[in-house]
């Protein structure tokens, strides 16, 4: 039981759900989303940054285990001990977090027999970053399970816990600074977590656009999922084109580091070279790794060899992995591997016969086709073809945003 106060020396910590609950009604994506939001509770107020990874080298390995699982803290079936996490340190289990798979894990459930996974995860991640138990009745670090703590998107740590974690890591100065990750592996592409389903408890804001009756500022495929951006919001579709929620998420709450006063985006795309995500607005752009902006951004779009004045659209063509930028009736071709604009551009945008100009945005999709968006309509061009498919344009709202 010997334990002195320890903390992480680095500020960028990776995480991964290695094993999921076996018989829970909670889907993998919901579990990942709850872990994401439980970590975010801590990173929102400290200089810590968490990013999900797919590989085996995550700082915080998350497992759902039963009984004796060879770490000296055997679980004891339903009730009793429900979870634990290892404090920071040099040992290989530091940060690892284990949940008892014999518990009935729930999310937004009125079932009093269930264990609210988000509430327990916030507590355990407190340990994973160095907090011990305390007796304060309001604290999330009280050792006893105290029931659900409400909406993960709105949860605010008790003051007692804020003070203790600030004593370890200091205060987060702003939402923008994010140091470059210390470890970066090409085969370790992080996956963005799902937003939790059932967002019905989130009240509609007055400036929320109507997804069925709007033209979008930007559209992008990111890690296989489609993102439709409008104003300060975005909608998200899974790989199988299911809308994650009818209600949009707020851009600045999900993509940490964009200016809070950003009222819209021009274009977004995922770089094929390193899977980082690039956001454009006016003469500036930002590069994100996962949900966090990289250090040193925004930068001017002249870095790409683009003229000032902004762009309308950006996408990577599956046919040649080159990135295409559009502005009015012009387009440029950029080599993301070489990090330079191909010579001879801009050209008048007639490469894909039938697409309109100016575009709102474009993206490649998992079916290999390219999709071009303007107003309330979209056009489809098959993989290596240079002409719009017959029957287009079609309705964005109907085909992508689940509108009748």
């Amino acid at each position: 039981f010997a334990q002195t106060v320890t903390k992480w020396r680095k500020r960028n910590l990776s995480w991964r759900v290695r094993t999921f609950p076996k018989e829970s009604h909670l889907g993998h994506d919901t579990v990942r989303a709850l872990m994401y939001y439980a970590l975010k509770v801590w990173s929102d107020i400290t200089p810590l940054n968490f990013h999900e990874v797919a590989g085996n080298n995550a700082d915080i390995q998350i497992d759902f285990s039963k009984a004796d699982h060879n770490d000296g803290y055997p679980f004891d079936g339903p009730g009793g001990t429900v979870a634990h996490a290892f404090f920071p340190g040099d040992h290989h289990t530091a940060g690892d977090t284990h949940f008892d798979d014999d518990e009935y894990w729930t999310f937004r459930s009125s079932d009093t027999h269930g264990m609210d996974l988000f509430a327990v995860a916030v507590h355990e991640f407190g340990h994973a970053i160095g907090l011990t138990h305390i007796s304060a009745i309001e604290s999330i670090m009280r050792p006893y399970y105290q029931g659900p703590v409400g909406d993960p998107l709105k949860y605010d740590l008790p003051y007692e816990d804020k003070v203790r974690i600030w004593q370890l890591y200091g205060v987060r100065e702003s939402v923008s600074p994010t140091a470059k990750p210390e470890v970066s592996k090409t085969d370790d592409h992080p996956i963005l977590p799902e937003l939790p389903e059932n967002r019905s408890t989130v009240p509609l804001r007055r400036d929320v656009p109507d997804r069925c009756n709007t033209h979008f500022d930007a559209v992008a495929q990111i890690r296989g999922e489609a993102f439709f951006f409008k104003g300060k919001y975005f909608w998200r579709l899974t790989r199988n084109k299911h809308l994650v929620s009818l209600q949009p998420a707020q851009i600045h709450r999900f993509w940490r580091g964009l200016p809070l006063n950003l009222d819209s985006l021009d274009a977004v795309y995922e770089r094929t070279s390193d899977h980082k995500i690039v956001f454009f607005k006016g003469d500036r752009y930002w590069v994100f790794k996962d949900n966090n902006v990289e250090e040193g951004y925004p930068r001017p779009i002249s870095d790409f060899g683009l003229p000032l004045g902004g762009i309308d659209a950006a996408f990577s063509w599956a046919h040649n992995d080159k990135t295409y930028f559009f502005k009015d009736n012009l387009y440029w071709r950029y080599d993301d591997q070489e990090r330079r604009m191909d010579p001879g551009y801009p050209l008048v945008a007639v490469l894909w016969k039938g697409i309109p100009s100016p575009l709102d945005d474009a993206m490649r999709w998992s079916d290999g086709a390219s999709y071009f968006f303007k107003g309330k309509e979209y056009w489809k061009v098959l993989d290596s073809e240079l002409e719009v498919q017959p029957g287009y344009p079609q309705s964005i709202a109907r085909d992508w945003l689940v509108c009748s």
Partner: protein
Amino acid sequence: APTPAEEDITRGVDWLTKFGYLPPPDPVTGQLQTQEELTKAITAMQRFGGLEATGVLDEATLELMKTPRCSLPDLTTEETRRKR
């Protein structure tokens, strides 16, 4: 107060040891904790849990011991030692 059953005392001692309130029995001599140590441990546990600190394994204390919780101990070795 009613005297706790022997089974409750055994379970209570296990619980208090598991969560850092009582040092484990001496592995060489096998000597168990004294009644005084046990009372102090129960008192500490009650204070930490927000209960009235009676030092007795009463119903509320046993109930709190049955509450689902994190596996990690509440007190560090240093704190346990200091309390002793």
